[in-house]
């Protein structure tokens, strides 16, 4: 393996570009970009998206979509907030109930998929149902303010480091181990790569599909609880804006580190690559639409480049096979 061969250059291109971004913005807007505030804001703002993307990674690895993740996050935040303000339950109980609800939503998605409904349709419908529940529970009003003890769980800064970022990175480490270094993860990927072949090799594909949807639901709800704690006052429209960034991170992640597979490290790189780019442009005087434009262009651009790379690799492979 060559260290700087074309393949490795592509695998780590995200990290190179990240370095390039940091360099450019350091030269362009040194006064505002190279500050602790900026670092904290980049790390902290992306923690929730990263946790949601990590949850989403599991069903994607198993070959299923979950379009209901963002609304699941929104519902969990509302449920957690409503329970706290309207009942006498302590915040840990409320959080646990909200996460259990999220897992239940995942189980419902999983059940539909096992029944034979296409995951794209099943979760699209589910996200509409969850939106209805969110409106129902919130009565279309802000829920809050939430207790200080609860808010502390997400806003503490041990050693000046945002604690949600710590949660997210811890979550990334756990998922990296689970997906990429245990038999369960390997079988999940096998389920996503070729369901029939995996089943004939002894993988219980139905079980892995169901489990993936449940994990995704629970993690999305966990992210929702953390958002609620972070903002202290939950808006009924909290969920949907998280959808595109989470999917973008996962798909952009497939162009990094383990090219062609949904993978944890690639997703982490993708999240921070996007965050640094957006932050830098904002500091350099970019307008409001810059964020969405940048996210969209980066996703489409990177995936297009990856498709080109794949085509080239496939051509090479084909030539090799024909020779053999």
């Amino acid at each position, binding site marked *: 393996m060559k260290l700087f061969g074309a393949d490795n250059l592509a695998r780590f291109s995200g990290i190179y570009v990240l370095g390039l971004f940091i360099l450019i913005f350091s030269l362009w807007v040194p006064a505002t970009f190279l500050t602790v505030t900026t670092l904290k804001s980049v790390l902290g703002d992306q923690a929730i998206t990263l946790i949601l993307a990590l949850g989403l990674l599991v069903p994607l690895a198993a070959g299923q979509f979950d379009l209901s993740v963002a609304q699941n996050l929104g519902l969990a935040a509302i449920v957690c907030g409503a329970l706290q303000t309207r009942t006498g339950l302590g915040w840990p109980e409320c959080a646990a109930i909200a996460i259990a609800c999220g897992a239940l939503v995942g189980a419902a998605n999983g059940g539909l998929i096992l029944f034979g409904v296409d995951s794209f349709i099943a979760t699209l419908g589910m996200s509409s149902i969850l939106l209805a529940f969110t409106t129902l529970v919130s009565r279309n009003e802000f829920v809050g303010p939430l207790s200080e003890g609860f808010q502390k769980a997400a806003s503490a800064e041990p050693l000046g480091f945002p604690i949600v970022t710590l949660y997210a990175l811890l979550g990334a480490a756990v998922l990296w181990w689970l997906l990429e270094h245990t038999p369960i993860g390997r079988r999940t990927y096998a389920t996503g790569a070729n369901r029939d072949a995996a*089943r004939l090799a002894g993988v219980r594909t139905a079980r892995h599909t169901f489990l993936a949807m449940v994990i995704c639901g629970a993690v999305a709800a966990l992210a929702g609880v953390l958002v609620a704690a972070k903002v202290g006052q939950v808006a009924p429209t909290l969920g949907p804006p998280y959808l595109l960034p989470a999917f973008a991170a996962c798909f952009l992640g497939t162009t990094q580190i383990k090219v062609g597979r949904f993978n944890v490290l690639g997703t982490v790189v993708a999240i921070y690559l996007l965050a640094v780019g957006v932050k830098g442009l904002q500091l350099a005087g970019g307008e409001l639409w810059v964020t969405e434009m940048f996210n969209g262009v980066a996703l489409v651009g990177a995936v297009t480049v990856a498709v080109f790379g794949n085509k080239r690799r496939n051509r090479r492979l084909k030539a090799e096979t024909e020779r053999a």
Partner: protein
Amino acid sequence: MWAADATAPSATVSLSLEGVSKVFQGQRALDDVDLELRRGEIHALLGPNGSGKSTLIKILAGYHRPEPGWSASMHGRPFELGAPAGAPGAHFIHQDLGLVGDLDVVDNLALDGGYEGSWWLSGRRERRRARAALDAFGIDVAVEEPINGLPRAQQTMIAIARALSAGVGEGALLVLDEPTVALSAAQVRRLFEVVRQVRDAGGTVLWVTHRLGEVFALAERVTVLRDGRRVATVPTGELDHDRLVELIVGRPLDAFYPEPPPVGDAPIALEVRELGGGTVADVSLDVRAGEIVGVTGLVGSGHEDLLHLIFGADRPRRGAVWVDGAPVGRGGPARSIAAGLAFAPADRKRLSAILDWTLAENLTLPAIPSSGPAHWIGARRERAETLAWLERAEVVPPEPEKLFSALSGGNQQKLVLARWLRRRARVFLLEEPTNGVDMGSKQAIYEALSDAAREGAAVLMTSQDPEELCAVCDRVFVLRDGRVGVELERARLSEDRIVAETLRSNGEAEGEGR
């Protein structure tokens, strides 16, 4: 070139290629190959995988451009080799058939020029035309069926009908790339008839195959390729079976098929009772430890579904399976594997393995090596273990990080076998284990099977190749209409016998043998 050439009038030559070479990534796939086909001739093209057959066909079809230095002519008229239109007047039936799986038979036939010159697409007119094209070759299928829902054999016949529907008359060239891979004996004979019609009408047929029986039954002359070079072009009348194998493999073969190990009174490893489902109505059979048992039959007789049902890949309607005396139950493949069953399906690309995964990942999938309380998969350990198995199974190249899709058919099959040998399976269920596999790999696969049998495993394999069944198996079950028609013991095994018993099911009228 051989001597007869000098005297043959050039009018009888249809396709003539000279000095065709092709280099892929610095490696020579074809090296200065000449090929001359005559009008009214069936010409067989033989050679192990990697010998350049496919490359040559693809150059003819216009998928690849040859290296400079070639010359090509058809009926004496030069043409541009490697141009996208392909050789003039040539019709191709490639291995993957080129049918659109989601469309029905009618649409697939119409795709080949059927839409030209009409403003209004009339479903009835197309159906009528499709029916006529299929009837011309005696193919009996429901034309509204989507291609995916049809057995492979019928798909092949439809592809052939499509290629020929435009009319292959005098001066045409029909190229078939391993067309009989999924066909039953009766369909093979049907195809032979069709191909002979083409020849008798003055056409030329280039027949690419691995099956030697076909060469002698059909071809007037045979060209053998090895390592990208032409080894010989010989009239089949001057050859016998052993001589042809020697030409292909490049060395004399003392024992191509290993001796089956003696079985005696070994305990029963696989017991199948009253199993039914799909095309299987009711099958009961036993396989003893150390035994290699074959299953064959016509298309639709049940042999395509039997192993799927035994393994639990398809849910049986009735019946039960025991391994070493213990019932397997109905937990699907995972349960069957735990009970000691192993399955290598015929559809290698879709079912046997994950194409874009590495050899290591594919090899270890049924039993992933992990260690410690964290169930950690160590890359180094997995690599080392894979390497040992790749070498043991003679997989070429023995590189654990190589993608499965980069292997040749034979090596893919060796890897699938290695996967189950590693799992120490008690019973191997193999569907058409040597389909599309070159001579050298075939031998390695036979040896791996007889090694496994010698160590006490039971092997149950389906095959459409009577020659292979005779050579490898201790017993052969011939299925008819979803039931065991006859069980042939070792002493009664012969190719003719197998063919005759296979054909009996569809009435004696067809059973002329070949």
